[in-house]
């Protein structure tokens, strides 16, 4: 049971962080299908920091620096989406898809080049990085939690406050709902859309790092983040672009994801369901729920439509 709670929390925080990122991007009007790739790049940067200066820094500093690195890398990578979707007004879904494919290739080549330079250099380095995650993990009684749980809760609350209690939130949302209206009252739509995309980059990057670090100490970048980014997109839609709903949806998805991995050590082992079945379930569940809720979807009205100041 503790294990189920542990893994549910672990995955839920990841999904929530990334889904919140997606929410910011979409609330500003940009569909961010590149979350999967952003996660991979953010995770890569964070892990690089851990692998490079894992021993030389005090753990508090290490945690801060590595998380910062993942956020910054996520932001930088998300700027590629911003550039294509906002500045060049290209199709957002297509740009995002391209970035997803690019991310894995970049991560593999980068890790291999890194391993090559530090190892024998015979061209045979692996796409794996090893690191220590001790600084991120805490034990409370029988329950193991990681630092991202705390960060996640803080970010959840901050997201809510930012979006609904500050003027920036109001402006960001206006850009996703009616960019012409925002523009006409002097709000710089391009700037806010970049802001939205960059926040999603930061949260996606941290989310990718949070996905990789607490559970393992070696990561093979050939798999990217194994579909977690797409799952987060589903969580975001499921959560109807609202922070607390997203948190709830993340927990729901996380329960199934955990079960897929640990069902054989719980009472559910008697059901004899295979991992594949558990893996399928959150997707099927969200499809069913989407079918019932989509009629009154809360999706930002202007999402996916490039804003062209000159257009009428």
């Amino acid at each position, binding site marked *: 049971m503790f294990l189920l709670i542990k893994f549910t929390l672990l995955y839920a925080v990841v999904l929530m962080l990334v889904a919140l990122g997606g929410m910011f991007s979409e609330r500003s009007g940009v569909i961010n299908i590149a979350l999967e790739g952003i996660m991979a790049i953010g995770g890569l940067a964070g892990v690089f920091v851990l692998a490079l200066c894992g021993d030389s820094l005090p753990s508090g500093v290490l945690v801060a620096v590595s998380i910062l690195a993942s956020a910054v890398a996520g932001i930088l990578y998300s700027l590629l989406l911003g550039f294509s979707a906002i500045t060049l007004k290209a199709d957002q879904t297509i740009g995002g898809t391209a970035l997803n494919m690019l991310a894995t290739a970049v991560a593999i080549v980068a890790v291999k080049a890194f391993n090559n330079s530090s190892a024998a250099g015979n061209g*045979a380095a692996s*796409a794996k990085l090893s690191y220590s995650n001790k600084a991120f993990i805490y034990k409370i009684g029988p329950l193991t939690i990681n630092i991202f749980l705390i960060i996640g809760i803080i970010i959840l609350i901050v997201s809510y406050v930012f979006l609904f209690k500050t003027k920036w939130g109001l402006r960001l949302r206006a850009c996703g709902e009616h960019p012409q209206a925002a523009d006409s009252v002097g709000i710089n739509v391009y700037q806010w859309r970049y802001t939205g995309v960059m926040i999603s980059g930061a949260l996606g990057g941290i989310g990718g790092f949070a996905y990789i670090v607490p559970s*393992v100490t070696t990561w093979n970048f050939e798999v990217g983040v194994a579909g977690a980014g797409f799952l987060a997109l589903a969580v975001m839609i499921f959560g109807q672009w609202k922070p607390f709903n997203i948190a709830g949806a993340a927990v729901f998805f996380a329960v199934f994801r955990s079960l897929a991995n640990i069902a054989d050590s719980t009472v559910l082992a008697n059901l004899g369901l295979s991992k594949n079945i558990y893996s399928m379930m959150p997707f099927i569940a969200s499809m069913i729920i989407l079918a019932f809720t989509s009629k009154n979807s809360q999706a930002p009205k202007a999402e996916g439509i490039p804003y062209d100041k000159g257009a009428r």
Partner: protein
Amino acid sequence: GCGSSSEENTTADNNQTAAPAATEAAAEESTEAAAPAVSADGKIAMITDSGDITDESFNQITWETCVAYGDKNGIEYQYYKPAEDTDEERINAIDLAVADGATVIVMPGYLFGPAIAEEQDLYPDVSFIAVDVTEADIVDLSGNAVGISDNVYICSFQEEQAGYLAGYAAVKDGYTSLGFLGGIAVPAVIRYGYGYIQGINDAAEEMGVDVDVKYYYGGQFYGSDAITARMEGWYQDGTQVVFACGGGIYTSAVEAAEQYDGKVIGVDVDQRPKIGDLCITSAMKGLGSAVNSALDAYFGGNWASIGGKSEQLGLAQGDYLGLPTDTDSWGFTTFTVDEYNTVLDGLKDGSITVSNDTENQPEVGSHVTVDYVE
């Protein structure tokens, strides 16, 4: 701990020291002896089957052996990765290697069977060394069995014997709740696993204790969050030791073991130096030394001694399999090296037999329950 880079520790030299003592010594000797005869005008090519040379398993061990051999003797080497996981691309990779001037091609993995069948006669001047490949694997693309030609040497190992030893020793040492975490269910992995269960069974019957085993293939040769989670579940559920048998997948078992004071059994080479004390032993096979001696035969002008041969290397043939017995690597508390040697002898002289059937799950007695997790 395991936080250190895996690269340094998995070098070929480590392989060699990790290989069973007798074989290793033999390999060393022959290298030394044949050294003057080694002609450097060959070129080694190694081709991976479906994985990467960084799988921390057969591909990597083979590659590192080739690298060490090449560096030592000043021979050029390169590896090739087929564009796709298909026989055709493996064939293309052989063509490419030959086109690049390779004179001896090393191929680890039973998947090379059809490629060898198709290519062996096309390049009579090129020598092929295939490990983990059996005669049954050498079929042409339509599935008809083909004999091997003189320019081909294939060998495979009786991993079930190493697995047997590991399982037997673990139960003898007092463990009653065990796990098997395989990588991809390739025949070698299955043989390890099924041997492991047979060893567990024999020890449990002997001692009359009840033992339960969880048995699972992760489907990958690397650790990941999902596998770690599963292992945490096992350890938390009472599993005491897990035989992590699939390249880098051991990292997940180790992660989980560290949190729950569990133990791990390594595979292929002695993994205790890499993993640390929670690795109680490793089921080893002499893959590196087999490759090494085959290369020696080729470059030493003795190809004829192995060409056209298909060898199934087991304890009857030499010390190709076993557990590490150095005091540094001996992680058992009650089980002794003497007891180990007794079983080892039994396997060598055939008084103990281990089935190598990979199609059917091994039969177990009333003391053992195996939970095959899907």
